[in-house]
C-alpha cells in the first residue's frame, strides 16, 4: 500500500447514483429468486444447486462490475485526548491539613510530585493540562503545580471550574477525564452538597472526574460563621440576633460570646462546646436606646493553637431608627393652646403622644367625692424618674412645677436634655420666669431667660428674624420671600412671657417692638444644651395659627401643623436636618473593599454650603486612632465624596468636620464594618465526602492526597482520527470479474441446454 499510507478501506468508485445501484442490486436479487423459482420442481438436488450457484455467482460478479469497488489508501494519526488536572487555588488551601500540619496547598503539591512519574506515563495517550481554580479557572504549568501554587482565591467553585473545562471536544480533542485536587471547601454551587441542579450539571459533563482530597484531619478552630440580624431596628424595641458558631477540635469547653456596641458590652452568652457537635446557634437580644448607626461586634476569645484567629469575631452595622417620636406633653391647665396642640400631635402618625393634664388645682372644689371624678394621680416619679429617658421630646405647656414637689426631678430633665433629649416650654402664666423656672435646672437648658417684667397681653405680629428666615423650624415656604409672606399672613397673637435670648441661642421669631436690653423680645427661640436641644415659644396663643388663621383669614391651619412638624424634626435631630450629613455608600464591607461616603454640608441657615472645607477621617472604633484623613471641598450642591482604601477587618467611624472661611459648620459621622474574614478564609472544615461523591457520580476515582497514589482514572480511550492524504485504487478494471461473469453465465446456459431447461 505504499509507505505513506498506514490504513486502507474498500469503497465504491461507481459514478452511478446510490438509488440506481440499489435498483441494480434488487434486480440481481430478483435474478437469483427467479432462478430458484424455476428450479423448485427439480428433484435432482445436484442440478438444482449447480444452476442456482452459477446464477448467484453471475449476479454477484455483475454487481461487482457495476459497483466498481476500489481500495482507498489512508494516511492516519492517533490524537491524544485531554486529561485536566485541577488544583484548588482558593484561600482555604493556605489552612493547615490538620492541627499544626502543613498547608493544604503544600499537600496538593506533594501529591502531584509523588504521582508525577505515573502521570508522565499517561502522556503517550493523553495530553495533560494543568489548571488552577478558585472563583475562576486559569491554566498553569505542570511544574508550577508540583512546586505548589500561591492559594489566595476568595472562593472555591469546583463546579464552575469543571463547567469551564467543557465536557466535549475542544480544539478537536476530547476531554477524557479530570482530576480535582482540593480540600472540598466549596461555598458556591456545591455549598449544600451534590444535590439538585448541581448534580445534574455534573452528570451532563459526561466525563469521569477523579478527586484527590487534601487535608482530612481535624483542625482546631472556633469561628463565628454568620450573624442573622436585620439591617435596621427601632429604638427601644427588642432586636433579635442569631449567630452561627462553628467549633472544630476544641474539645469540651465553655466559650463566653460577647456582643459589643462600639466597645460597650450589650449582651453576653456562654456557648457550651462539646466534641460531638461542630455547629451551634446562639440567640441574642438587646434593646437599643439610642438612634443612629452603630457597629456591633460579636466576639469569642482566641484559644491557643487555633488555625485562624480573625474568625473569632464578626462585626455588623445596625441602623437604629425611631418608629415614632415619643412625646410627653405636660399641661398645667386645659386651655385652647393645649387643645389645638394635643389634637394636632394626636393626629400625627409620626408622634406617639403621652399627655398629662392638671385638671384640678389645689384651690379647686369639685363638689363631688373622689369616686365621682375621673381624675388620676399625677405620676410624677414614674414620668420624671423612671420613664423620662424613654421620651424623645418633653413639652411643658403652662405647667407649674412647684405644687407637685418636682424640684428634685428638674435635674433629671436637665440631664435628659444634656444626654440628647429635647425639651420645649410654651408660654403661659406658669411658664418661664412667671413659673419660677429661671432659678431651676430647667432655666439652664432653655434658650431664653426672664426679662424681669410681667407678661404682656397686647396683640402683636411676630417678626421673622434673619435666623428664622432659613431655619427649618420657621420654613413655611421654600423661598425666603414666600416664607416672609406666609408669616405675614398669620394672625396677630395676644399674650407674651417677656424674656431675653441667652448667648448662643437662635431667635427665630421676635416681638416687633417690645425690647429687652435693646433687643426685641424673643417669641420663638431655640438652643442646644449638651447633646440635646430646647425650644421656647413664649406665648400661649400659638393656637391662633390654627383655627383663627383658618377662620378669620379664610386660610388653613397648615402653618400651625408645619411649624410644629418642623420643630419636632429639628428637636429630635432628624438626620435630614443635620448640618453635616455623612452617608457611607455601603456600611457592611467585604475585606479589601474601599470605604466610600458622601458628605452633605449645609450652612447655618440650612442652605447648601458650596465650597465648604470638609475634613473626613476614618477612625478605628476600638482604638480611637485616626487611620486615614482627607481634606475635601464641597461642590456647588454642598456635597463631597470620599473614598478610602480598605482599612482591613474591623469597625470604623467616618467622621466629617465642615467649615466655611474657618467658621465651623458642624460635624457628622457614619459607621462602617469591614468583615473580619470571608467564609473562604474562616471555615476551616475540609469536605472529603463531597469530593468522594463527585467521583462516584461521574465514574471517577477517589483518593486521599496523603496516600500519595494515583488511582485508576477510568479514562475514555484516546481516539484515532484520519489526517493527511488518501488515495483510491480501482479493482473492477481487472480482467477477472468480467471473466467470472462470462464463465458463469456461459456455463449456466450450456447446462440448461444440456439438461433440457431451454
Amino acid at each position, binding site marked *: 500500500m505504499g509507505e505513506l499510507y498506514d490504513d486502507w478501506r474498500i469503497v465504491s468508485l461507481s459514478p452511478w447514483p446510490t438509488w440506481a445501484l440499489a435498483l441494480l442490486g434488487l434486480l440481481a436479487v430478483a435474478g437469483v429468486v427467479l432462478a430458484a423459482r424455476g428450479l423448485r420442481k427439480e428433484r435432482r438436488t445436484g442440478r438444482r444447486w449447480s444452476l442456482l450457484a452459477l446464477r448467484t455467482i453471475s449476479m454477484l460478479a455483475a454487481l461487482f462490475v457495476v459497483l466498481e469497488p476500489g481500495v482507498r489508501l489512508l494516511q492516519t494519526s492517533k490524537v491524544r485526548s485531554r486529561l485536566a488536572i485541577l488544583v484548588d487555588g482558593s484561600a482555604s488551601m493556605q489552612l493547615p491539613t490538620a492541627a499544626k500540619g502543613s498547608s493544604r496547598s503544600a499537600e496538593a503539591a506533594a501529591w502531584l510530585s509523588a504521582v508525577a512519574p505515573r502521570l508522565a506515563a499517561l502522556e503517550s495517550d493523553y495530553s495533560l493540562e494543568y489548571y488552577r481554580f478558585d472563583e475562576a479557572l486559569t491554566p498553569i504549568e505542570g511544574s508550577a503545580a508540583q512546586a505548589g501554587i500561591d492559594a489566595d482565591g476568595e472562593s472555591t467553585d469546583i463546579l464552575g471550574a469543571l463547567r469551564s473545562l467543557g465536557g466535549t471536544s475542544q480544539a478537536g480533542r476530547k476531554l477524557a477525564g479530570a482530576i480535582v485536587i482540593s480540600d472540598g471547601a466549596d461555598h458556591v454551587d456545591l455549598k449544600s452538597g451534590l444535590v439538585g441542579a448541581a448534580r445534574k450539571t455534573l452528570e451532563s459533563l459526561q466525563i469521569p472526574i477523579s478527586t484527590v482530597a487534601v487535608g482530612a484531619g481535624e483542625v482546631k478552630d472556633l469561628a463565628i460563621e454568620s450573624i442573622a440580624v436585620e439591617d435596621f431596628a427601632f429604638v427601644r424595641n427588642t432586636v433579635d440576633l442569631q449567630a452561627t458558631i462553628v467549633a472544630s477540635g476544641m474539645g469540651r469547653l465553655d466559650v463566653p460570646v460577647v456582643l459589643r456596641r462600639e466597645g460597650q458590652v450589650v449582651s453576653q452568652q456562654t456557648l457550651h462546646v462539646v466534641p460531638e457537635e461542630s455547629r451551634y446557634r446562639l440567640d441574642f437580644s438587646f434593646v437599643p436606646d439610642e438612634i443612629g448607626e452603630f457597629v456591633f461586634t460579636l466576639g469569642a476569645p482566641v484559644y491557643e493553637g487555633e488555625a485562624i484567629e480573625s474568625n473569632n469575631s464578626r462585626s455588623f452595622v445596625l441602623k437604629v431608627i425611631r418608629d415614632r417620636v415619643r412625646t410627653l406633653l405636660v399641661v398645667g391647665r386645659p386651655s385652647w393652646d393645649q387643645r389645638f396642640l394635643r389634637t394636632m400631635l394626636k393626629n400625627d402618625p409620626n408622634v406617639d403622644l403621652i399627655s398629662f393634664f392638671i385638671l384640678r388645682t389645689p384651690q379647686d372644689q369639685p363638689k363631688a367625692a373622689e369616686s365621682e371624678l375621673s381624675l388620676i394621680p399625677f405620676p410624677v416619679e414614674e414620668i420624671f424618674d423612671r420613664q423620662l429617658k424613654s421620651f424623645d421630646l418633653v413639652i411643658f405647656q403652662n405647667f407649674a412645677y412647684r*405644687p*407637685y414637689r418636682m424640684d428634685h426631678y428638674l435635674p433629671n430633665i436637665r440631664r435628659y436634655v444634656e444626654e440628647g433629649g429635647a425639651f420645649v416650654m410654651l408660654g403661659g402664666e406658669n411658664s418661664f420666669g412667671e413659673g419660677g423656672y429661671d432659678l431651676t435646672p430647667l432655666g439652664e437648658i432653655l434658650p431664653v431667660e426672664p426679662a424681669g417684667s410681667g407678661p404682656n397681653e397686647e396683640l402683636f405680629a411676630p417678626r421673622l428674624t434673619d435666623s428664622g428666615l432659613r431655619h427649618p423650624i420657621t420654613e413655611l415656604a421654600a423661598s425666603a420671600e414666600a416664607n416672609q409672606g406666609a408669616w405675614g399672613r398669620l394672625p396677630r397673637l395676644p399674650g407674651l412671657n417677656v424674656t431675653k435670648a441667652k448667648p448662643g441661642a437662635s431667635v427665630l421669631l421676635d416681638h416687633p417692638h417690645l425690647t429687652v436690653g435693646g433687643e426685641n423680645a424673643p417669641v420663638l427661640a431655640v438652643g442646644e444644651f449638651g447633646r440635646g436641644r430646647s425650644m421656647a415659644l413664649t406665648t400661649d396663643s400659638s393656637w391662633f395659627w390654627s383655627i383663627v388663621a383658618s*377662620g378669620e383669614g379664610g386660610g388653613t391651619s397648615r402653618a400651625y401643623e408645619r411649624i410644629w412638624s418642623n420643630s419636632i424634626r429639628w428637636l429630635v435631630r432628624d438626620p435630614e436636618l443635620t448640618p453635616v450629613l455623612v452617608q457611607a455608600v455601603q456600611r457592611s464591607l467585604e475585606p479589601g473593599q474601599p470605604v466610600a461616603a458622601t458628605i452633605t454640608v449645609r450652612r447655618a441657615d440650612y442652605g447648601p454650603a458650596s465650597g465648604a472645607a470638609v475634613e473626613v477621617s476614618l477612625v478605628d472604633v476600638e482604638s480611637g486612632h485616626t487611620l486615614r484623613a482627607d481634606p475635601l471641598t464641597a461642590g456647588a450642591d454642598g456635597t463631597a465624596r470620599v473614598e478610602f482604601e480598605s482599612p482591613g477587618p474591623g469597625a470604623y467611624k467616618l467622621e466629617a468636620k465642615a467649615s466655611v472661611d474657618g467658621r465651623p459648620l458642624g460635624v457628622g459621622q457614619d459607621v462602617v464594618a469591614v468583615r473580619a474574614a470571608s467564609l473562604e478564609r474562616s471555615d476551616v472544615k475540609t469536605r472529603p465526602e463531597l469530593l468522594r461523591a463527585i467521583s462516584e457520580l461521574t465514574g471517577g476515582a477517589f483518593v486521599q492526597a496523603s496516600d500519595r497514589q494515583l488511582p485508576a482514572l477510568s479514562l475514555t480511550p484516546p481516539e484515532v482520527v484520519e489526517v493527511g492524504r488518501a488515495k483510491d485504487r480501482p479493482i473492477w478494471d481487472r480482467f477477472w470479474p468480467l471473466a467470472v461473469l462470462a464463465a458463469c453465465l456461459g456455463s449456466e446456459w450450456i447446462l440448461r441446454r444440456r439438461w433440457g431447461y431451454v
Partner: protein
Amino acid sequence: MGLLVVLAGLPLRAEAFGETSRLVIAQGRYDGNWNPRPTALRRLAFEIGIRTSISTLPEEKILPLDSAELFRFPFLYLAGTDALPSLSQAELDNLRRYVNYGGFIFCDDAGDGRFAASCEREVARMLPGQSAGRIPSDHVLYKAFYLIDRPAGRTLARPYLSAFMDGSRIAVVISANDLGGAWARDELGSWEYEVVPGGESQREYAFRLGVNLAMYSMCSDYKDDQVHLPFIMKRRR
C-alpha cells in the same frame, strides 16, 4: 386615691394673659329668642372656674353666627325656646368652617323640644351627609371630669344627648333638657328655675354635665388615653 392631683402650692391665674388664654364661651345671636337664660353661662363659667383648673371669664361673648370673631372662641353656646330659623348660607359656611377647624357647638333647648329638633335640621344642612346620633353612655364626654351616668338639665325631657361628629371628635352636642335653666341664677343668688323632677341634686348633675362639656371641648378624648382607663374602670364598678 389620696394622691389625686397632689395639692400644694398655688399656681398663678391666667388673667395676665388676656381673655384668649381662658375659657370664654361664645353665645350665638340669631333672629329669635336666642338668649332665654341670660344668667346661665355666667354661672356655668363661675362653677367651672371653682371646680376645675380651667381658667374662665364669667362673661360670655355674644356673636352673630356669621362672625369671623367666632374663631377666637372655640366653644359656642346656642340656646332657644322656639325653632331655630333657617340659617343663611353665610352662617352655614362660617359654622361649617368653625367646626371643621376645631370649634365646638353646644345647642341647649330651653323650650319644648322644637329648638333641639331645628338645631338637628340646621346642623345637618351645615354638615351635609351627616345626621344626629345619640352619644353612647360610655363616651368620653361622660368621664371628661365627672363620672356621669346620664345627662340631666332643668328637665329630663330626653335621656340622651345628640351629636354630630367631626371625624372621631364630637363637634356639635344637642340637648333637649334645658341645661341653661338649671344653671341660671339671679343677681341675688337665687336659682331662677326649679329643676324637675330631681330637684337640687339634678341641678348639680346639670352643672357636672356643663363642666364635662367644657372639659371635653378643651381636652377632647384625653380621658380615653390608656393611662386613665384602669382608674376609671375601677370607679365605674
